């Protein structure tokens, strides 16, 4: 809504239209349209978060029950039960209940008995079978399930006794993300320093777009490449046992992160005022010393922001990790496999019964992921914004 420069003293009319304004309704509409689009983007982000959080809410409140063995009422007792009791026992909404005749209710009660009879014998005396496995205790703390020698963190959401411990997924996500960052950040920042400070203009014109082109490779292609080529190559190189592991996934993830970190870091390094460089060179320092000791420290907040934004990119990446490694082990060893949150959501959502506990926990994971990327992106943006204002001397 900035007035045109030649009219900067003219009073603002209604919504920017005023007399003397060279009747540009089209521009006005275009501007308002873009404004509306921008607003709707914010609305969409909010809506997505509200949707994800709403689906996850019953789990947070402990409203789902996954106990394998649930109390059974004999179907013959149907007539003795009050309608409210029947609705609760059969988990019916009032609307569903109203639309059912006695026969249907009876069949549903039979099915409840069948469900109880479906429980394999070896689980009937298992103390965990009567337990609701969606308790925060079981979701974040180790528990000694039957058949295990010691308390463990287990993610096994499908089976008789469903185990929803989130720790293996959190560790898996962080492990892969950190490996990716350890690989990508030094390379990307090094490349940024080279391109912005040391390279001849001719070289820069080739190197910069090439690195940025990396971000144009679809992640499924990177994943495919990692699965078939890199996994074998790295195994031969390092000689570890598991062919598909967090290390391969991390390196492949690095390819997705490098362009993000590179562009932002390069941008930050370039925005360090020329006066710094010129002063350093005039005092007799070499190009390398200038880059390393003057420009890089000055741009450090920008490089930090680049890393944080790279983290946000890496933690949300799905396809590469999904294709390369997916075992939910609890281990910080880089040569073990890992299962990330994104992988879990992508691989399991299709099969989760909608509205069921597994489905809700996947949404909970989605909300966690959303919060993590949101916070990291916000920190990154905040830091880079402050850095830019400082560099431009607009404090």
């Amino acid at each position, binding site marked *: 809504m900035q007035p045109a420069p030649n009219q900067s003293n003219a009073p603002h009319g209604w919504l920017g239209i005023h007399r003397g304004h060279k009747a540009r309704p089209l521009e006005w509409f275009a501007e308002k349209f873009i404004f509306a689009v921008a607003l709707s983007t914010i609305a969409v982000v909010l809506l997505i978060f509200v949707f994800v959080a709403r689906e996850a809410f019953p789990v947070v409140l402990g409203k789902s029950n996954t106990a394998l063995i649930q109390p059974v009422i004999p179907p013959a007792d149907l007539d003795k039960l009050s309608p409210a009791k029947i609705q609760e026992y059969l988990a019916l909404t009032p609307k569903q209940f109203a639309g059912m005749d006695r026969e249907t209710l009876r069949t549903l009660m039979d099915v409840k008995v069948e469900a109880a009879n479906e429980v394999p014998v070896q689980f009937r005396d298992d103390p965990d079978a009567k337990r609701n496995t969606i308790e925060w205790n079981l979701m974040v703390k180790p528990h000694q399930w039957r058949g295990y020698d010691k308390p463990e963190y*287990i993610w096994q959401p499908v089976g008789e006794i469903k185990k929803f411990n989130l720790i293996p997924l959190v560790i898996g996500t962080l492990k892969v993300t950190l490996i990716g960052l350890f690989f990508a950040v030094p390379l990307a920042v090094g490349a940024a320093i080279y391109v912005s400070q040391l390279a001849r203009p001719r070289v820069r014109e080739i190197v910069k777009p090439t690195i940025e082109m990396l971000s144009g490779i679809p992640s499924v292609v990177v994943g495919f490449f990692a699965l078939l080529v890199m996994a074998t190559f790295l195994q031969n190189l390092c000689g570890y046992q598991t062919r598909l592991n967090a290390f391969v996934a991390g390196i492949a993830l690095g390819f997705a992160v490098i362009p993000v970190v590179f562009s932002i870091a390069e941008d930050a390094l370039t925005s360090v005022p020329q006066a710094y460089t010129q002063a350093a060179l005039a005092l007799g320092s070499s190009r390398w010393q200038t880059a390393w000791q003057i420009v890089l420290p000055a741009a450090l907040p920008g490089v930090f922001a680049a890393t944080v934004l790279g983290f946000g990119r890496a933690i949300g990446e799905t396809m590469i990790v999904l294709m390369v490694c997916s075992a939910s082990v609890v281990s910080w060893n880089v040569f073990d496999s890992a299962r990330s949150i994104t992988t879990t959501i992508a691989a399991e959502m299709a099969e989760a019964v909608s509205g069921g506990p597994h489905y809700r926990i996947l949404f909970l994971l989605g909300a966690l992921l959303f919060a993590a990327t949101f916070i990291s992106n916000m920190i990154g943006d905040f830091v880079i914004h402050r850095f830019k204002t400082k560099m431009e001397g607009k404090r």
Partner: protein
Amino acid sequence: MKKLAIILAAAAFATGAFAGNITVKGSDTLVILAQKWAEVYMGQHAGIKIQVTGGGTGTGFAALQNQTTDLCNASRKAKAAEIANCIKAFNKRPTEYKVALDGLSVYVSADSPLKELTVAQVGDIFTGKIKNWKEVGGADAPITIYSRENSSGTYEFFKEHVLQGKDFAASAQTMPGTAAILQAVSKDKNGIGYGGAAYGAGAKHLAIKKTDSSPAVEPTENNVVAGKYPIWRHLFIYVNPALDKGEIAAYLNWIRSDEGQKVVKDVGYFPLPKNLRE
């Protein structure tokens, strides 16, 4: 009178052609077979359109319950909870049809010296109790386990019947499909995986012994159909009984006829023995 009959016939044909849209959804194991059935059937019956999609057995049941699909392919029996959901949606139990047999093979690398395992040994390997090949008569090397994603019906079947409900080892790598497991096992000489007996190039199918004393059986058609091979299952189609008439009923009957069962064999699964066709 003759005219009227012609008009009626034309009307019947028109409505037949109009109503001849059948949607099929569900198990990824069944998707190739279902597509082949649809292709052959559509070739013989002009005016009928059959759309087949996969997504997993659970997805199929969800669609059956939301009434967004006519037929649900399933690589396992419906669970009580799924039946309850269907009753809530359309007040009736879904009708179950057995449509084919499938043997599950245990794959190892073609370089592996191993030839046979018992069902119990396979279970112990996949739960992580047996960690080294030498414990089952192989070389002294750690075992790498390849499993399916937990959305797969094959995964659930294997967990229920071979692992006796125990958890897969946490270190089991989950792969997106049987072909991916085969690809991984063929590249990993210490790997072991499982999947349909119909798949197979690139890896060795182990012979399986039901108990220590029983003979080792190869997962061939004869052995599976005769019930000698211990790891096998039915493949099912579920349908809302209200829809099980007209075109859909005809299609289901055709699937279970000799002609439909011949397609099963062409795709690589095993046809139902006559006495199981109901």
